[in-house]
Every structure is written in C-alpha cells, then in structure tokens.
C-alpha cells in the first residue's frame, strides 16, 4: 500500500512538474512547422555578408550568421553577450583606440568548425582591402588594424578615439574563413561574380542554416542543430521560408488564409481590420515605432548655382540664398502651417507620429523637451508677413515686398517634389499643398520617378523634395546628424543637399562624437541642443515617423516581439497544427 502511495505521489509530482515547467522543457530540433514569412520585395542578391548591401539580403543573412556584436532586444543597445552576437564582452585600452573583443566559444558553423576570431578577421581582411564593390567606407576609415590574439580574442585598433566606434562595426559579421579562403581566395574584387554567394555550403551561429534559394520564389533555411542560444534547448521551427509575395493585397489575403505565419508590417490600408480582428482573437498583433522617417528637404541655397559646402582647404564656400527658403522664417512658417492631424488622417490612416527631428522617442539621445511645431496658421502668416511676403494685390498668393532674398513682386511660389507611385507620399504632399496655399503660398506638387528624384536631390537644383529614410538600429545619433555638416554638402554625391551650415551645430555634433570618456548624459545634452537647432532652423521639415503593426497567426506560440526586434526568439516559435 505504501509503495502504491509512493508511486502515485511520484506520478503526481512528475505530472505537476511537467505542467509547471513543461513550457521550458527542451524541444526536439525542428519539431514545429516551418515559419513562412512574406518577402514583399525582390530576391536577396547575396548571402555573403561581406558584399551584402540590400535589406532583403540582410533579412536572410541575419537568420543564418551571428552579428559580431549583438543588440539587446530590450534596451536596443549593443551589448556583450546579447543573444545573436558573437562578442561576449570587450575592453577598451587607455589609448581609447584599442578594443579587445572576447568572443563566445560555443558557436560552430554548420560543418562543425568552431566560429572564431579568424572568421571575423577574414571579414575585416576582405573589407579593409577596399577592393570589394560594396560600400563600407565608414568601417574602412575607422579601423586602423586588427589582430587575432587567440581563437576567441580579437584586437581592433581604430584610427582615432571617439564615441561611435562600436557603431562603425555594425556591418561586421564572422564568415567561415576556412571556406571563404578556399572559395574566394584573395580575389576580393571578383567576389561579386562567385556562384557561392547564392549557394553557400556553410553557415551557422544563428537559429537557422542555409538550405536553398529559388529565384523569384523563396529562400529556405533549416533549423540549426548546433544553435546554442535556443530558448527551448533546440530550435523549434523546422525551418524559415522567406517567400516572395509581390502584391500587398495578395500578401494579406495569404495571411488571412493562414498561408503565412506572420507579417512584419501590415499595410496601412489593412491595419484597422487587422487590429479589430486581433482584438477578436483571430490574430496576435504588436505595434511598435517604425524605423523610418518622412521629411521634406528644403534647399536653403541658390538652386541655380549649386556649390559644395567646403573648398579643398576646408573653408566654407558661399552658397548664395534660395530666394524663398533662404529665409528661416519662411521655413518655420511651413512648419507652423502643417496641420498634422489632417495629414495623418488623410495620408497615413491615422498611424503617423509627429516628430521634431530624426531621433525617435525610443532612441537614447532623444531629448525630453523636443516638441514638433504645433499647427498655428496665425503664427505662420505672421512669420511670412515679417519675412516680407505679403499679398499686396489680393490674388491669394503672397509676393515679395521687401523680403530678404527674392526680387520684389516675386510670388511666394515653390515646387515640392516627391516620388511617384507611393500613395501615402502623394497624398501627404497633396494635402500639404492645400494647407500651405491657404497661407498664401503657391505650391506646385510634382510626383517624379524615383531615380529622377534622387538625381535632382543630389544635384541640389530643387526647392523642396520629400522622401523617407530608414534609421539604423541601434540608433547612432551621428548617423543622420552628420548629413547636416558642411562636409556632406557635395554636389552630386553628398546628402547635405539643403546646403545647411550652422557653426554651433557643427561644433556640437563633433564634440558629441569625440567627447573624452563618452559620458552618455553629456552627449545626450549635446545632441539635444543640436536637434533643437535643427528643429528651429528647419533645413528639413520632419514630418512623421509611424508605427508598424506586426501580426501573427494565433497558433504561433512564444511569439513575443519587442521594439528592439520582432524575431529575437524566433527559435522558440512553436506553430501548432490548426
């Protein structure tokens, strides 16, 4: 009888334990259904991290190669030992330029070879040769030398000490040196043409390993049996399929039909529907700030005579003045004259978030008091009056009557260009045209083919051009701020196309980059002042960032996206049969 009680008690205990800890018990490798994710775009161009230069390729590379330095998905900052990163910690020598990186010793490639410092060194060797076709100037400029101290320790010496050195290592990945040496040798310039780029035999260190690529259809990765950072002890999904779906309507219908596991950006037109159905329990949803920012670049210089910002000796070159936008009051009036609520409803289905700068509220350098311009038509008109643009003839369009840079009588007319075919951009500038014309502007809006638009943008021959850009994660505050330095004002290839030059801003950006000791709070204050200058001087009108809505099927267990990464625990996603 006692034995029976003991057996029963033991059984109960086991059942209780299973119920309690069952969800973290080790899973069998690839025991769950594969994840099918839509690729709304085009094929990856390469699976070689050394030459990758497009988002689609990186989408795949990030699933099958570890980062050099991982990003913590909660703090959205580079961190030693962060999941998905090879670096476990690093030390900075007193000289401020020598970094010693200590690497994890438990990562292996799919052929069983360990992932070591030699694999990072091979990446650096190829990239620093300057012979590969992919642009990596930031890395080439910052790294002076590197040395493998042992299999799991790497020294990198930078050219100068500053606070953004870790950011410059963002493109670095370990690559299987033993394979790359054999496949590519030292022909870095010819790397592009090697068939191995799209048929890699060795990958690893991440949740999946490469399986196959069907052009125009799908890229398939399989669960990595040697993945040591799996949340559940082993990678649960059988694989990850990146499926090309080129029409957004069809993409969403496939998702609704259960053919896609999750969608990482629900189109604006479907968001209300998905939210509602999500609340009804049909899908899992998650909303997070987007990594893009919309802006209208205002040319402050004479568009008929574009000039570089600096001469060969580094002295500022006179830029002339844009007849209308050369006056900061006009630029501020455009800001005050933007009714964001109306724009948001009309162009972004209510999903836009007004911004005052290119820094996102989730970025560490975001200053607390930085506010977007409020909509204030009276303030806008007062500024235009003050700037000498008044409507003397009563035709509804203001003219120059004693303004700073235009001839008297010249109408307050501007041409705003944006990329054709992007419906939200087209709607945005059509609405803004009406709003600004109400103030007395004569705005012409042109929708231009993208290549032509970029050409005009870099040629600096425009009045105002509206585009949007992706922001880096983790954010490097100097990333976009550097664009406003006079050194980036290079006709034809620099992006300070508005020819903005503010000495205090230049000083702040350089000081924040090079601050001895890199104290975060001091740097944050410096960037805060810089952002305030940009907001007040308005070389761009920062219009909006937005939220992205992610949605997954309800049968995906452990789907727990974070602002710092939707797929941080993709290895644990468990897809139940429905």
């Amino acid at each position, binding site marked *: 009888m006692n034995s029976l009680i003991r057996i029963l008690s033991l059984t109960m205990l086991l059942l209780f334990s299973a119920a309690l800890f069952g969800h973290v018990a080790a899973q069998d490798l690839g025991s769950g259904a594969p994840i*099918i994710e839509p690729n709304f775009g*085009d*094929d990856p*161009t390469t699976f070689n991290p050394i*030459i990758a*230069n497009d988002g689609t390729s990186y989408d795949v590379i990030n699933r099958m190669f570890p980062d050099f330095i991982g990003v913590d998905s909660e703090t959205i900052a580079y961190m030693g030992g962060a999941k998905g990163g090879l670096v476990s910690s690093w030390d900075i020598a007193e000289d401020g330029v020598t970094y010693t990186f200590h690497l994890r010793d438990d990562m292996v490639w799919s052929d069983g070879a360990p992932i070591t410092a030699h694999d990072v060194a091979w990446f650096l060797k190829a990239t620093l040769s300057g012979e590969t*076709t992919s*642009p990596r*100037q930031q890395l080439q*400029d910052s790294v002076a030398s590197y040395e493998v101290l042992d299999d799991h320790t790497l020294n990198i010496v930078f050219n100068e000490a500053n606070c953004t050195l870790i950011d410059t290592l963002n493109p670095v990945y370990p690559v299987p040196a033993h394979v790359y040496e054999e496949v590519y040798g030292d022909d870095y*310039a010819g790397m*592009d*043409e090697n068939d191995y*780029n*799209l048929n890699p035999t060795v990958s690893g260190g991440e949740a999946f390993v490469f*399986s*196959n690529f*069907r*052009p*125009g*259809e*799908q890229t*398939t990765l*399989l669960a990595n049996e040697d993945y040591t950072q799996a949340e559940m002890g082993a990678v649960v999904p*059988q*694989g990850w*399929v990146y*499926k*090309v*779906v*080129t*029409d957004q*309507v*069809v993409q969403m*219908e*496939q998702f*609704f*039909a259960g*053919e896609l596991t999750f969608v990482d950006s629900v189109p604006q037109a479907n968001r209300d529907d998905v939210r509602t159905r999500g609340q009804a329990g049909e899908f899992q949803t998650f909303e997070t700030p987007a990594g893009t920012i919309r802006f209208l670049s205002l040319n402050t210089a004479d568009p008929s005579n574009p000039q*570089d910002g*600096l001469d*060969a000796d580094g002295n500022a070159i006179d830029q002339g003045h844009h007849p209308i936008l050369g006056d900061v009051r006009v630029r501020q009036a455009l800001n005050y004259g933007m009714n964001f609520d109306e724009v948001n409803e009309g162009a972004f289905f209510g999903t836009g978030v007004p911004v005052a700068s290119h820094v996102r509220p989730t970025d560490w350098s975001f200053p607390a008091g930085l506010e977007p311009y409020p909509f204030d038509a009276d303030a806008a008109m007062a500024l235009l009056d003050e700037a000498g643009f008044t409507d003397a003839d009563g035709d509804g369009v203001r003219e120059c009557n004693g303004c700073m840079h235009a001839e008297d009588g010249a109408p307050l007319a501007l041409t705003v260009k944006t990329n054709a075919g992007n419906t939200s951009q087209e709607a945005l500038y059509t609405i803004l045209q009406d709003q600004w014309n109400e103030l007395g502007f004569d705005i012409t809006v042109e929708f231009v*083919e*993208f*290549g*032509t*638009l*970029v*050409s005009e943008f*870099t040629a600096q021959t425009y009045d105002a051009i509206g585009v949007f*850009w992706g922001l*880096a994660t983790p954010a490097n505050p100097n*990333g976009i701020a550097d*664009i406003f330095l006079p*050194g*980036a004002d*290079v006709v*034809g*290839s*620099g992006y300070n196309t508005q020819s903005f030059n503010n000495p205090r801003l230049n000083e702040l950006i350089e000081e924040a980059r090079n601050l001895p000791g890199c104290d975060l709070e001091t740097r944050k204050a410096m960037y805060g002042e810089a952002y305030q200058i940009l907001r007040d001087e308005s070389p761009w009108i920062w219009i909006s960032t937005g939220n992205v809505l992610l949605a997954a099927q309800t049968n995906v267990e452990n789907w727990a996206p974070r602002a710092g990464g939707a797929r941080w625990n993709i290895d644990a996603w468990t897809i139940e049969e429905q």
Partner: protein
Amino acid sequence: MIKYIARRLLQSIPIFFGITIFSYLLISLAPGSPVEILAFNNRLKPREREELKYILGTNDPLPVQYLRWLIGDDWMRWDSDGDGLADSAVFFIDLYAPQLNDSGKPAIDEDTGDVLLRPLPAGNQRGILRGDFGNSVYYKRAALDVLVERLPATLELGTTSLLVGLIMGVAIGIIAAINRGGWFDQSSRVGAVIVNSVPNFGLGLLLILVFGVTLGIFPLAGRCKTTIDDSCPPLPSRLEYLVLPTIVLAAGGVAGYSRYMRASMLDVVSQDYIRTARSKGLNERSIWLRHGTRNAFIPIATFIGPSITFLLSGAAVVESVFSWPGVGRLIVQAPGRRDFTVVMLVVVYAAIANILGYLISDILYVMIDPRIRFD
C-alpha cells in the same frame, strides 16, 4: 526558304544595332544613375558614391560605355606583366584614376599640387558580341543568369496562355461568324468588350478573391507549393497554380482573336470562291471549315508573331499579382533601379524576340496561303 530566312536575318542586323544604340542613349541620358539609386543610403559618404562611379564605369564618356557593353573592355585596358593592374591602354582610355578625398573629389598632392593618381585594374568584360552581357548592377551577378533563371516560368505561363487564347479565340470567332447575329455572336461580342475593359490586375485580384479566398479552389498565388525542401514539382503536378494567371493572361487573347477571327471569317465567306464552292454543292460544314477557316487564318497569322514576343517577355502586372517568378517583373524593375546591364539585356532579348516573332509570322503566311512565295 532557307535563303529567305538568311536574307531576313541579315536585314535584321542593322535594325538590331539601331535598337541597341537608341536604347543605350535613352537610358544613359535619362536622369538618375545606378550609383544614385544603389547608394541612396544616409549611412554612405560622398567618397563611396564617387568610388562607385569608377567601379561601374558611369564616369566614362557615353561612346566608351557603349563600346564596353558591345565589345568589352579587355582590349581597351590590359595587364601585360601580370601584376593585376593595367599597364597598357588604347589611346582614348585612361590608365589611371584620381585618388579621392573624403568629399569624393580628386586628392591633391600637397607638395606638388598635382592630382594623386592610382592605377586602374585591367578590363575584364568581353561585351555582348562575345556573349558577355555584364553583371547586373543590382543583383551583382551575370545579368544573363538573372534573366535565364526566370525564363522557364515565363515560358510556362506565356505558352499556356497563348495556346488557350488562340484556341478559344479562334473557336469562338468561327462559331460567332457561323451564327452571325445570333445569341452566341452577341454574347461573344459583349464578353470581348467586358474582358478588354477590365484591367489585368483587377481581373487577377477578382479571381484570387473569388476562386482562391472564397471558394478555395485554386491557390492564391505562386508557382508551386511553399515547402521547406527544394522542390517545385513538374508542371503536371501543379497545374492548379497555372489556372488563374492563365485565365487573366489568356482573356485578352480570347477577346482579341475571337473578334479578328469572326471578322476575317465573314470577309472570307463573302468571297467569290466560297460562292463557287456553294454552287458546286459542297456542304456548309466543308465550306466553313475547309475553305473558310484556312483562308481566315491569314490575318490571324499577323498577330502570332507579336504574341510570341509577348510570350517571351512575360507580363509584369500578372506576374506581380500572382507572385509568378517570370521575366516580366524583372523587366519592369530594372529601369527603375537604373540597372543598365539588365535593361540592355532585355532590349537585346526583346529585339531578338521581335525579329524572330515577325519572321515566324511571315513563314506562317506562306504555309497558310499558297499564293505567297519566299521571294
């Protein structure tokens, strides 16, 4: 016939070169370069953009760029001593390029005031006349490979829709002509107008919503089932994927061919030889099908050539709606990306397809109409 074909092909050579020169000029003179598109990234520096211009050769004069595309650059700049750098060049080609400073401008030697130079690599392109179409600027690999790997999907869809369009269109046209003024004739006319009025993407989405989403009869898109393994089974095992895109692509063909066939048939049956056939006592079936149809096919042959061109060049809209991995999407995307090598490859491909298409049309004329000779 062989002499005729050879003569036609020889006549095509100047046409071919004319097309390539015109197209090359057109795309080169259009605003926006591959560098501006590829390097539209705020993390890149001016020097990287300038460097990219040297790598892609977009800094060279237009005639040099065209010549390089046509007959390669391995004869323009070459490496005699095997050190990997060019040491000899023809008179109009530079052996050196300026070193660039951070602004992407030529770097100046502070002591001498001269521009600092660096040697350029030897040319390695063979040009299209030697079978080298160059690397795609976007895909970073042989443009020909990019096109060829998408060709089977395009041929699959194009051939099916051409056959369906032709067979159904001709059949409907004949029946409509025989029943002139009847309900079938009227219905086919109304149907043709409706089909021609509905844009392809609209029809495609409608079919997906009805037959894919609501009824669940056909897959929503794609060419084969999404699987974890590397398998797209042979066509007979996945015909269901072909049905909806074929209907959309063939619909226009059915409408067009049926109207042309009907008009052509009615024209033929009013001819004297048909009246003679009737007076000889031939039955109606024989008159319509043996004498009428064969002669009515002659104008239809005119459309077969261009249809073959269409078959080879894919249908971008339908391929996009159905995520069909064909060349159509590639053709549409390449100019937007300023992927000059792919655009020019497509021009060559389309030119050859057109030349062959019209040649086939002419051969069909002779086969259908014995009065026409290869003269």
